[in-house]
Each structure stands twice: as C-alpha cells, then as structure tokens.
C-alpha cells in the first residue's frame, strides 16, 4: 500500500459523511472525506429544518425509525464534546379536530412502540400551558419533550473539525466522476484529474448517491428529490414558540411547522413537493402563501413583515421511503448510505455507528480505537450578547474582537478570521460558520468588509471570491480605486 492510499474514503461531507468521518477518526485508520464543493455542508445538510426529531413519525419496522431514536439520544454527548448550538426544546403536534386527534393517538402508539421516552397525549389546557402562543381553538395534541433543535452547519463543521484534528483528511473541490478497482484498491478520480486511492469507499453523496453508486458499479437505484421551502423570521417576531410546533402529519411529509431555531429566530415550513431537477433550489409565490396560511393557523403573530430570508432544500428519497445502508452486493468494498431523507439529521450519529459496524462485521476491516483520540475541539469565543466587561477582556487578548463586522448578528473580526483560518474561505462558508450575514440585513452592510478580510487573510483577489465555489463570484472585475 502506497503511503498516500487510504483505508477508507467517504464521498460527501454532509451531516452523514461528516458523522462517519468523525467516528472513523477515532480509530487507527487512514481516512479521508472527498467533497465537490469548497466546504462541508453545502448540500442537503445546509437547507433543512434543523430538528432533532421525536421518534414517533415513522413505523417501528423501518430502519429510519430505529436510527432516529438512537441518533437523537447521542446528541447530548456530542454537544458536550463539540459545543455546537443544540437545545432540547420539545415538539408539540397540534390537533384541531377529533379526526386529527385520532391520528395523534396513532402517533403516540407508534412513538411508544419505537421507545420514545416521555411522550404524552395532551388536552388543550395542558398544551396551552406548555405553549401559550398556540391558537386557542386547539383540540389537543402530542408532546415529545426530548426532541430538539440544532444548527445543522455548525454541527457538521464541528464534526469535520474534530475529524481533521484526529488525523482525517478533508479533500475539497473534488468532484468524483470516475473510479476503477484492481481487486485491492479503488482509484477515485475527480473532474479536474486528481486521484485518491482507498481500500473501502463509503457513498454518502446525498442527492447524488445514485450517481456515485453508478460510478462504482453498485446497485442501480434512483434518488428522487423532494423539495421543501422554508421562511425565516426575524428574531423580534412575536411568533416565537418554546417548542417546535407540528401540524398533524399528511401522508408523505410531517407537514409545515413553526420552529424556534436554536439561533433565536423563527422558521416556518417546509413544503413537500416531488420534483425532477436535483439543482432546483427555487421558491415560489404560491408556496409562500400556503406556508404562511398553515403556520398562522397554529401560532399567532406570524407576519410577512418579519421575513428575513427564504430557501429550499431537497430531500434525497428512495422509492421505498426508507434509508438504504448496507455493504453493496454489486460493487466490491463499497458501502451504500443512500436515501437519507428526514430524519437524516437526527439519525446521522447513529448512521455512523451502523456504518462502522458494517465495515467491521461485513467488510472485515480491523477497527482499533485510537488512544490519542481527542473528543473535544477548541471553542472560539463569540461576542453575541456578552457583557461589556467580558468583551473588554476579549479585546485585550485579541484586538480584532473590538471590530464588529456583522452588526445584525454581532460578529467580530476575530470570529471571521477564525473561520477563514479553519478553512472557510467562501462567503457562504463564513456565513454558516459565524452567522455573519444571516441576520436582518442579510449581508447588505457587512459583505464588502468580509470580502476584504478574506482577501487580506488568503491573498485571493476580491473578484475571485465566490459565494459557494464554481462560478458564484460576488463582484465583477476591479475597475478602479485603491483598497483602503
């Protein structure tokens, strides 16, 4: 084996790839993650509802139900080690008729069968006590206290950071287009002609798991994108609930929700719509109307005036609606992790353990715990909401804390520089890492400041800086003037 060869290569750095990567990095292995974008978490994992689900939505017979509960339970430990924003808010499913209450009872039974701890059926009085902002016409509902919310990109970034700290390689801008196998090693080739070699390959390519499977001569399945549009409301919106509020679910999706995000904003959505184009990230007028109507039915105070941004994400769905996680029957030394739709974010830590089990049991890879494994990562101080005294201390250590770059979310230059030094060099990468530009002005004030800081720190000319790689340049060419 060449010194450049890997034992395991993971294709994709979404929440699934990153969870697997971190777990791999705790063993005596040489492993890498390859990603077509310049940063992690630019796929499905950046555009979702950020909910750690309550393990009552899916039938006990499914793989996703099992991994959902297990994944949920693993979040506390991960949060302790990695410090990403996470909170157990609880979920309420709000029913408005006796017909809907029937469904609530079914969900309750399913939750109990799945082993969901602490769930209960509530009458309207108890629900309004738990959540005073609910529509008072509520008939009753389900309460799952151990469900929560997470900041998905911070979670993924912290997993990748931890994995890299423990020796895993993160290979960016590497779009897998071709592969070959010589009986021992896979050669994996990128669109720009680079190659990496690996004994085992794990397919965690999200929407493109079907394409990657094809490239490695694996199973022929099709990933169907199912779109979800979401709207984000200002921190000051009066419509912020304490719990995540669900309607009684429809057939294919969990319905449109009101979500108190862990960052302090309120999010409403998502829709659920089958589409063909895996690159379609568009939102539409008619769906906006539907989301506002549905959400306002459950919680009062939701207003279009408070919208700060909207986005859409695509769920990677397989025909049978379940996760597909197994050693490929067709491609050698290749593991499929496909169809990871909701609750993929919740399940990801458990998916990683499941994959490692397959690697050891089905593939015969020897797994030996790394003695030097460091579970924690360093934490960067943030200035949002801290006291003047504390801020003064930070500035004394590092004057860049005194320069507030993003005024809406209060992000200092020190935090931006930290993000860049950790490898986030696109506008979106810095935004997802620090939250700069995520507030009410959406980067109207701070974008040019961040462009200058990136350029200063990395030497990339301003007109070469992109929003998220490829051709997504922020400005046109330099025409005049000196940078001050």
């Amino acid at each position, binding site marked *: 084996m060449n010194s450049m060869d890997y034992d395991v290569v993971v294709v994709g750095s979404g929440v699934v790839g990153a969870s697997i990567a971190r777990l791999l990095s705790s063993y005596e292995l040489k492993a890498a993650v390859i990603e077509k974008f310049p940063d992690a978490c630019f796929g499905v994992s950046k555009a979702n509802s950020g909910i750690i689900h309550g393990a009552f939505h899916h039938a006990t017979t499914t793989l996703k139900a099992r991994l959902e509960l297990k994944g949920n339970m693993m979040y506390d430990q991960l949060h302790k080690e990695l410090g990403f924003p996470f909170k157990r808010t609880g979920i309420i499913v709000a029913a408005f008729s006796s017909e809907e209450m029937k469904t609530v009872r079914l969900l309750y039974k399913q939750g109990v069968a799945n082993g969901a701890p602490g769930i209960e059926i509530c009458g309207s009085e108890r629900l309004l006590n738990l959540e005073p902002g609910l529509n008072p016409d509520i008939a009753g509902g389900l309460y799952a206290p151990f469900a929560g919310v997470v900041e998905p990109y911070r979670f993924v970034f912290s997993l990748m950071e931890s994995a890299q700290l423990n020796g895993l390689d993160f290979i960016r801008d590497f779009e897998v287009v071709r592969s070959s196998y010589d009986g021992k090693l896979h050669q994996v080739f990128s669109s720009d002609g680079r190659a990496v070699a690996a004994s085992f390959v794990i397919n965690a390519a999200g929407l493109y798991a079907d394409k990657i499977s094809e490239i490695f001569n694996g199973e022929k399945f099709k990933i169907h994108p199912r779109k979800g549009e979401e709207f984000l409301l200002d921190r000051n919106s009066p419509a912020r609930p304490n719990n995540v509020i669900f309607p009684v679910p429809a057939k294919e999706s969990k319905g449109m929700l009101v979500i108190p995000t862990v960052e302090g904003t309120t999010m409403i959505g998502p829709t659920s719509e089958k589409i063909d184009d895996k690159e379609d990230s568009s939102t539409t007028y008619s769906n906006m109307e539907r989301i506002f109507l549905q959400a306002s039915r459950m919680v009062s105070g939701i207003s279009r005036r408070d919208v700060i941004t909207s986005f859409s994400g695509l769920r990677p769905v397989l025909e049978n609606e379940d996760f597909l996680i197994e050693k490929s029957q067709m491609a050698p030394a290749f593991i499929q992790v496909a169809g990871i739709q909701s609750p993929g974010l919740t399940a990801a830590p458990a998916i990683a353990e499941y994959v490692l089990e397959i690697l050891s049991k089905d593939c015969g890879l020897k797994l030996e715990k790394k003695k030097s494994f460091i579970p924690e990562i360093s934490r960067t101080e943030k200035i949002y909401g801290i006291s003047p*005294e504390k801020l003064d201390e930070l500035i004394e250590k590092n004057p860049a804390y005194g320069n507030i770059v993003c005024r809406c979310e209060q992000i200092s230059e020190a935090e931006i520089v930290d993000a860049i030094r950790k490898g986030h060099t696109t506008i979106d990468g810095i935004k997802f890492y620090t939250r700069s530009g995520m507030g009410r002005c959406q980067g109207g004030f701070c974008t040019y400041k961040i462009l200058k800081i990136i350029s200063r720190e990395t030497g990339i000319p301003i007109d070469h800086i992109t929003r998220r790689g490829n051709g997504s340049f922020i400005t046109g060419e330099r025409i005049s003037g000196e940078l001050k």
Partner: protein
Amino acid sequence: MIKKTYDAIIIGGGAAGLSAAWNVAKAGFSTAIIERENCLGGILNQCIHTGFGLHRFGKELSGPEYAEMDIDLVAANKVDSFINTTVFEIRSNGILKSVFASSAEGVTEFETRAVILSMGCRERNRGNLGIPGTRPSGIMTAGLAQRLLNIEGYLPGRKAVIIGSGDIGLIMARRLTWSGAIVMGVIEILPYPSGLARNIAQCLDDFEIPLYLGHTVSAINGKERVESVDVSPFKDGVPSLSGTFKIDCDTVLISAGLIPENELSVKAGVKLSNATGGPYVDSSMMTNVPGIFACGNVLHVHDLVDYVSEESENCGSAVVSYLSSDECSCTQGNISAGSNIKYIVPSKYRTGIPQKFYMRSLMPFENAMLTVKCADKILFERKLKYVRPPEMQSFTLTPEMTDGLNENSPEINVSLTEV
C-alpha cells in the same frame, strides 16, 4: 474598561450626527461622536454624484463635499470623535446614561446626560420583499453595489436589473451605465416611481433605461450567478403570472426602501412607531426615554440630506435646552396623521415656539389641500402641488397658530384632501 464623561454623546457620524453634534458643542457642552466606520460622513461618503445641498447651501455638492462642510464645523466646535468604534449598548441610570462602545482598544463606557441616536438606516433586501426563485450570487442591495463600485472599485456585474425605483437604485442605474455595464430595466411594483422625479429624468430617461411601473419580479433564475429574472404585471395585490416575461441579466440590485436601524434603540427601551420604523419623539426630538433623542434616518427615512441636517440642527438645539434645564413652561400636545397621511414627525407639538413638522402622503395628488386642525378649528391650511409619497412634505406651526391651546385641548390632526 476605559471610562469617559461627556455632556452629550452622538451615536453615528453621518449627516444627522454631525449636524446635531456641532449644534450642541457650539453652546459650550462637551460632545462626542461615536462612529463605527473609519471616517465620519456616513452614507454620504459613497454618494459621489452631485445633488446634495441645493436647499441648504444653494449649490449642488457631491455627498463627500456635503459631509465635509459639517465635518469642518464639528472640528471647529471641538467635538471629539471616536471612529472605528461601535456602540452596542445603552444603559440608563436615572438621569445619567452609560453608552458602551467597542473598538480595537477595548470597551469604553461613555457616561453622559444626553444621547442622540443618529444611526441611519439599512436597506430592505430580497428576503424582506419575499422575491421567489433560486439563490445564485449576484443579488445585492443597491447600497452595497454603490459601496463596491464607488469606494472599493469593483463593478457589481455586467448586466443588471434593478428592483424598485428608489433613489439609490436610480442613481446606480446611471452609475452602472457610466461604468460600462448595461441596465436592462427598473421594475417598480407601484403604479408610480418611488424616487424623485429629477432622478427618473436624469438617471433613466437620459439613458433610455426602461422603467416597468406596476410590475414585479416574480422569480430570480440562475444557478451559480444570476441568469435572468421573471417580470410579471402586479394586479390586485398579486403578480399576474400569465403576463410574465424574462429579462436576461447577471446582477439584480434591490432598491426598495430603507428601514431605520433601531436595534440599539429598542434595547435601550425606546418605543418605535409602526408607520416610520423610527422612535416616537416629542417636540424636543426626545424619545419616550428621558435624555435619549433621535434625528436623521434613524428617526424616519428622508429623501434629501438637506432635511436631515435641518432636523438634526433642531435636535441639537433641543438637546442644548435640555442640558441647560431651560425647559419652557409652554404646553405640549399630540399631533397625529389624519386622512391620506402616512406619518408625521415629531408626534408632539409645543405652544410658544415655531416648530417644523415632516410628513409623507399615502397617495399621489396633483393638487391637494393640507389642513391642520384642532377639533373643528382650522389652525392652518395650504395648497400643495404634485404631492407624491416618495417626496417628503413639511410645514411649520408658528406660536400664533397654536395660541390658546392648552393641556385640555384635543390633539391636532393633519390631513390631505384632493382639490
């Protein structure tokens, strides 16, 4: 933590903060401006076109030239200024206020008796407008484009569509054209333009840039960078998708209004008006929090900087009276927006002094009658020509007009009617 003491602290060194500051300092009070950017002048610094100062100085200046006038007065009147310093908290300890600001040197606590809020405003963005479509690069507010082009020296793009006919967007249409970019059109949802008439003529008509009134952008298209927009007629409050057409472009600028920047004010307990987005102020430009005053775009959005300066000079004088404790014994009463008026600022009047009020109409009029009434008594009437919502109106209440009003008088009502 460093501690400093001043009679008055001005937050924001734009046109508003500068005028207010030198007017306070002129009366002998120790005054400081705190500004987060690396120089004074605020948004004027990026407005390199002319058209500023016609009312105030009787000549057309560029933004930086206009700012220079006040910056000189600030220096001459010995106002201290702290640049690269951002205020992040205001605390009230009874009559005294503590203003906390951060800079590379650390946090400074400014102890003061009067605080003037003059933080300006921010621009409405795509999210605020709820424009559907994809999320490519190349969508930005007109102000950011102005900054990139005029100060940083980068062309925002080659082929632009501008959403909203606000003044900044119109100015940018001309600026982009001069820089070699093509402006494919300006899309305005209202049946009339929201920028000044002179800007429509000088920035669009002169360059044959199409203005689509009563239209909206119903989708932005493109993967990495903007590729096109869908433009639809706007009828009965919704885009009529059957009439949609496409315009190719690589850049979308948004110039659809400004929102006063009041996060800091709200944290300090200042109450805001829904109509202006700025604080309610009384006849001394004081907010509901005693000792905290406001002027300029943070109070309500102005279309001309000349009015910003005028209002802020008045604010400065009011702060001087406050600091000298020579409050006049005359009465204060409420003045409110009546029919066809969006808002009126300040929201209180005072007898015994002349006082200027600023307001905006809710709809355009060829000929309108402005009526200021107290119950049935008409205090003042004036004919106005070509009243349009984008153009701010003003009038002065003289002591004669308010003569005889007292605490028990009903509120004054201001209205516009078609004649």
